[in-house]
């Protein structure tokens, strides 16, 4: 029994050390990287993998199912919310030009031709009116012709 206990403790401690190491790398990346997107790339490492490792380690060490279920809840919650917040932050970062465009290899959001000005849901109240582009105007003409 005690040998099993010792082995479980060793596994738990190793998992916690790995998670803590990921937290350190997140801090290093936050300081070293050049713009918001790369900093977010580094900063969200411990958000999923680090928290998962530490939760597994703590669940091994803690006895009783109530603590385990609550740790599982935290892990699932992290995995559900990390993509949402990352998406929102990176979208705003791109639109406010906090992205080093000269360091991007692929920039799919850059508009090549004359842009459409279409509301995306987060415009201020005094924003200029929508100017949908050629595709929308064309389809409207087709509708009127029909």
């Amino acid at each position, binding site marked *: 029994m005690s040998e099993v206990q010792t082995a479980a403790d060793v596994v738990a401690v190793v998992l916690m050390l790995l998670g*803590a190491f990921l937290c350190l790398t997140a801090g290093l990346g936050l300081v070293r990287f*050049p713009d918001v997107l790369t900093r977010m790339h580094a*900063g969200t490492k411990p958000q999923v993998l680090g928290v998962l490792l530490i939760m597994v380690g703590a669940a091994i060490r803690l006895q009783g199912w109530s603590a385990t279920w609550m740790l599982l809840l935290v892990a699932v919650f992290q995995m559900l*919310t990390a993509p949402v*917040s990352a998406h929102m932050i990176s979208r*705003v970062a791109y639109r406010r030009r*906090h992205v080093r465009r000269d360091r991007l290899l692929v920039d799919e959001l850059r508009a090549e031709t004359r*842009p459409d000005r279409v509301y995306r849901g987060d415009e201020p109240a005094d924003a200029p009116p929508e100017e949908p582009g050629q595709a929308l105007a064309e389809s409207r003409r087709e509708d009127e012709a029909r």
Partner: protein
Amino acid sequence: MTVVYWLVYGLLGTGALLALVRLGLGPSLLDRVVATDTLLVIIAAGLAVHAGLERDPTVVPVLVVVSLLAFVGSVSVARYIGGMLLSSTGDGQDVGLPESAEERTARSLEVER
């Protein structure tokens, strides 16, 4: 076990300190949001490590609150900044109110060269 204590808390503390450095330096509000998010995650990890090492399950409900707070905080600040956007008339990119500090520094470096 004492070595493990020092090592784990040292790693977590150094990570939190570096996140605090980024929180102070900025330069943009979004950098601070990312740094705050990371800091809260590191705090949650520290609480979980404390719970695990001390076999003390009383701090586990605090973990749920901290992770919820990180999500709600970053999303609400992102929405708040998104409401300040102006639509662009030029190249199809939305223009933020000020010019971003990253592009300014990059341009000044190019000028110096």
